[in-house]
């Protein structure tokens, strides 16, 4: 058992444990912080796979931008400590959890037989760099890249529209006025 495999197994265990903590903590802020930990562990695994650019993007976009947005919304809505996260187990949720475990068992059953024995590809060192990703992005995937900008514009417009005060006259406004 070499060092790389030991480090991988430790990181994998930490990733699974932090993911489970995300869905079991009662306080949403705690969940969000464990999710940040999970994103960092996955970024390290990307570095194991020589995907440097994606690892940096993972930390800046996911752990940076998206999680700040989550924490901002949690604190804006003041959901710190309430009864929203109580695990009230009814039959539907029990069945859902059991089916999740069954699905995990099925996937692992096929993955265990899926050991090709081959290591990282010889090109793996070079395809993860910013240079090679940029070349592939602008040469072969230019149109999807441009469409992504339209998607982001639509998301900005949608978020602003949904956050406008005029579209609702709910209890929050009535209380403030």
């Amino acid at each position, binding site marked *: 058992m070499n060092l790389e495999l030991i480090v991988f197994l430790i990181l994998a265990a930490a990733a*699974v444990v932090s993911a489970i903590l995300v869905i079991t903590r009662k306080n949403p802020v705690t969940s969000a912080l464990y999710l940040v930990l999970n994103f960092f562990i996955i970024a390290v695994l990307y570095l194991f796979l020589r995907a440097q650019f994606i690892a940096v993007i993972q930390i800046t976009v996911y752990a940076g931008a998206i999680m700040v947005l*989550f924490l901002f919304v949690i604190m804006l809505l003041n959901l710190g400590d309430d009864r929203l996260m109580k695990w009230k187990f009814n039959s539907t949720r029990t069945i*859902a959890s059991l089916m999740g475990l069954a699905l995990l068992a099925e996937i692992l059953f096929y993955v265990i037989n899926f050991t090709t024995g081959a290591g990282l590809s010889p090109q793996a060192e070079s395809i*993860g760099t910013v240079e090679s990703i940029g070349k592939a992005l602008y040469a072969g*995937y230019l149109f999807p890249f441009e469409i992504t900008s339209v998607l982001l514009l639509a998301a900005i417009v949608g978020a602003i529209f949904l956050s406008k005060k005029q579209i609702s006259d709910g209890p929050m406004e009535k209380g403030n006025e």
Partner: protein
Amino acid sequence: MIPLGYYIALSAALFIVGVVGVLTLRNAIVIFMSVELMLNSANLALIAFSAYSGDAAGQILVFFVIAVAAAESAVGLAIIIALFRNKLTVNIDEVNVLKW
């Protein structure tokens, strides 16, 4: 050397944690976090296959997935804020106006 199967097994485990979170939780924000967990597990599988097959297309796809996830979380959290403004709750059991 780490076998490819280990990465896929980890990806599957993270995905299942996300699925169970979506199916069992009631707080809309934490359900969104579970969706992010699932997107990340899919990204991990894509990067692993990309590195083991020596093809950059997987990493390009992950780039697009991250862009879509950013757009999705912006719109989703705006929906949650609008929901909270109208209902004063983010508990999805209490939001059933579309249910007959």
